């Protein structure tokens, strides 16, 4: 069930209606049932994966929690007895180690499942390439595994849960079914956000009474999401596909066009999908953590990554970046490098090393291919460079006061947009060398003169499509500008009477219905009566 299918829309309408009709006790079980039905539609075999990951992390969480409770009690009892401080400490450490082991086993199994389904064939592919390089005629066979829908997202969510239980951020969820709902909550199953148990559980199991206002607000967000997805992302899609699908034909300026078109498509697609996700959850009275904060308005790439796919970024920071960079080998390395490379440079070694790991994993998490790995590392390089240039920037800013300068801000935003869009070219082209080559043609093949030759009208979208896209993008930008000072829906609620707001969203629905790129393309020529 794709978000844009009739089935999904029917499913959500039914689920929301049932949610508010059913008695309190049955509300969260309905969500669980609905989530599994939703997942079932992706393929019944995939149910085993989600069920397995849920089971393993559930048990790990329980065991860790149980150990913690038990050892805390015993520690308390020991306090009364007159024991040497060392012994308590040892006891505490021993239990902590136990918990750490349980955590390690739990998350290792969960991640192993992810690794096997996601990376086996990629690994085999690389081994085969190596075998060819060494002129060994033997080749390994690929495994026939389909990637279960959303596995990267729910595995991360479940792993985060186990770590948070270990870190004592919250207790383990004892009710298996409630925990299963946390892992499988259907709106965020396909593309995130990756929620934390501590955040999502606050409202997930609470029975919410019907409120027209809450449902209406959620619906507003859903509509906006569909607008982005159907009117913008899916409309520009044919042009993107044509441009990147025939690289030998579209070089130079067309690579630039592909880069910008793809950036727009990805942004509208991803944020639109998240708007639908969060909007549906809001309709059920469940707040979900925001995943985007107008990322293209960022001053630099580091900030962009704090505002794009936020829940993934914080996941990597909390569960990979920090643990690695404050691990004892890292601290030792830090000491050593500071002693040998000097204070300034030495300090950076551990940070950069941890960043490298984070960006490598970020890359490969996005997809099992070198394109994504190089893309991830590309981000790493850009962030490191901007970090290294920091003193230079400071000098520059001391000399020229740019604070409050709109021109400079625009320059920064433009830089962010260009850099991030350029890196995304790795998503587009077939392989890494081709991406580099195509990127290069932007500077070597100077064909901007052909911009008006009408080639853009032959990419699969018409002049009218461009008009819709331009207007849609304009609306996107205007709404983002308004959102800088707070939620647009809040502002509308404060300033516009309900019928006017209703009218605005009704208009948006009509715009989606008519100008959305969905359904079969109606082709009049299909209908011309041919003789027979």
């Amino acid at each position: 069930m794709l978000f844009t299918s009739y089935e999904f829309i029917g499913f959500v309408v039914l689920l929301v209606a049932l949610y508010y009709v059913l008695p309190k006790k049955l509300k969260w079980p309905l969500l669980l049932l609905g989530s599994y039905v939703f997942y079932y539609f992706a393929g019944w075999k995939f149910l085993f994966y989600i069920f397995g990951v849920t089971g393993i992390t559930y048990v790990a969480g329980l065991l860790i929690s149980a150990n913690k409770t038990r050892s805390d009690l015993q520690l308390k009892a020991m306090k009364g007895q007159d024991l040497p401080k060392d012994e308590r400490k040892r006891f505490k450490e021993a239990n902590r180690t136990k918990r750490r082991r349980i955590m390690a086993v739990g998350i290792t199994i969960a991640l192993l499942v992810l690794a096997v389904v996601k990376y086996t064939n990629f690994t085999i592919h690389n081994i085969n390439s190596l075998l060819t390089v060494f002129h060994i005629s033997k080749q390994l066979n690929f495994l026939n595994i389909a990637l279960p829908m959303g596995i990267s997202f729910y595995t991360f969510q479940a792993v985060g849960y186990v770590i948070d239980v270990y870190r004592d951020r919250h207790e383990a969820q004892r009710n298996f079914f409630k925990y299963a709902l946390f892992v499988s909550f259907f709106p965020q199953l396909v593309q995130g956000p990756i929620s934390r148990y501590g955040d999502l559980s606050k409202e997930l199991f609470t029975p919410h009474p019907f409120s027209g206002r809450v449902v209406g607000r959620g619906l507003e967000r859903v509509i906006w999401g569909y607008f982005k997805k159907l009117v913008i992302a899916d409309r520009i899609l044919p042009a993107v596909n044509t441009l990147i699908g025939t690289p030998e034909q579209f070089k130079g300026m067309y690579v630039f066009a592909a880069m910008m078109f793809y950036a727009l498509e990805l942004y509208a697609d991803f944020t639109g999908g998240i708007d639908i996700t969060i909007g549906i959850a809001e309709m059920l009275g469940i707040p979900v953590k925001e995943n985007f904060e107008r990322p293209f308005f960022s001053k630099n790439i580091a900030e962009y990554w704090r505002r794009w796919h936020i829940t993934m970024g914080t996941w990597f920071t909390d569960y990979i970046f920090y643990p690695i960079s404050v691990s004892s080998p890292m601290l030792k390395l830090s000491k050593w490098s500071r002693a040998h490379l000097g204070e300034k440079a030495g300090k950076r070694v551990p940070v950069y090393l941890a960043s490298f790991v984070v960006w490598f994993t970020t890359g490969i998490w996005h997809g099992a291919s070198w394109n994504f790995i190089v893309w991830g590392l590309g981000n790493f390089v850009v962030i490191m460079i901007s970090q290294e240039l920091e003193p230079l920037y400071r000098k520059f800013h001391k000399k020229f006061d740019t604070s409050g300068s709109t021109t400079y801000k625009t320059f920064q935003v433009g830089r962010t947009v260009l850099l991030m869009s350029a890196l995304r070219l790795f998503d587009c082209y077939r392989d890494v060398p081709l991406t580099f080559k195509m990127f290069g043609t932007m500077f070597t093949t100077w064909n901007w003169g052909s911009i008006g030759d009408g080639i853009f009208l032959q990419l699969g979208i018409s002049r009218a499509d461009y008009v819709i896209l331009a207007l849609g993008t304009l609306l996107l930008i205007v709404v983002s500008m308004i959102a800088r000072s707070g939620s647009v829906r809040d502002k509308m609620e404060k300033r516009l009477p309900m019928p006017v707001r209703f009218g605005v969203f009704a208009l948006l629905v009509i715009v989606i219905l008519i100008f959305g790129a969905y359904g079969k393309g109606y082709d009049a020529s299909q209908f011309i009566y041919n003789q027979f």
Partner: protein
Amino acid sequence: MDELISILKEIHPDVDYSTATNLVDGKILDSFDIISLVAEIADTFDVVISAEYMIPENFNSAEALWNLIRKLQDDD
């Protein structure tokens, strides 16, 4: 505490750490700064701030950080 402030000053000299209470939430300290901080603290106070303590609340003000260091020292 003074030692901690001087470490912090090294990272961002222009911040008044006696009053600032949103070092992380206000995006004054980024993750790079926090890592350097943890390394310095490990050196100076012989305390390892492990990943589980790396939440904004513990780094938002000099005082909160100081309390964390003291708590971890006590634990040992």
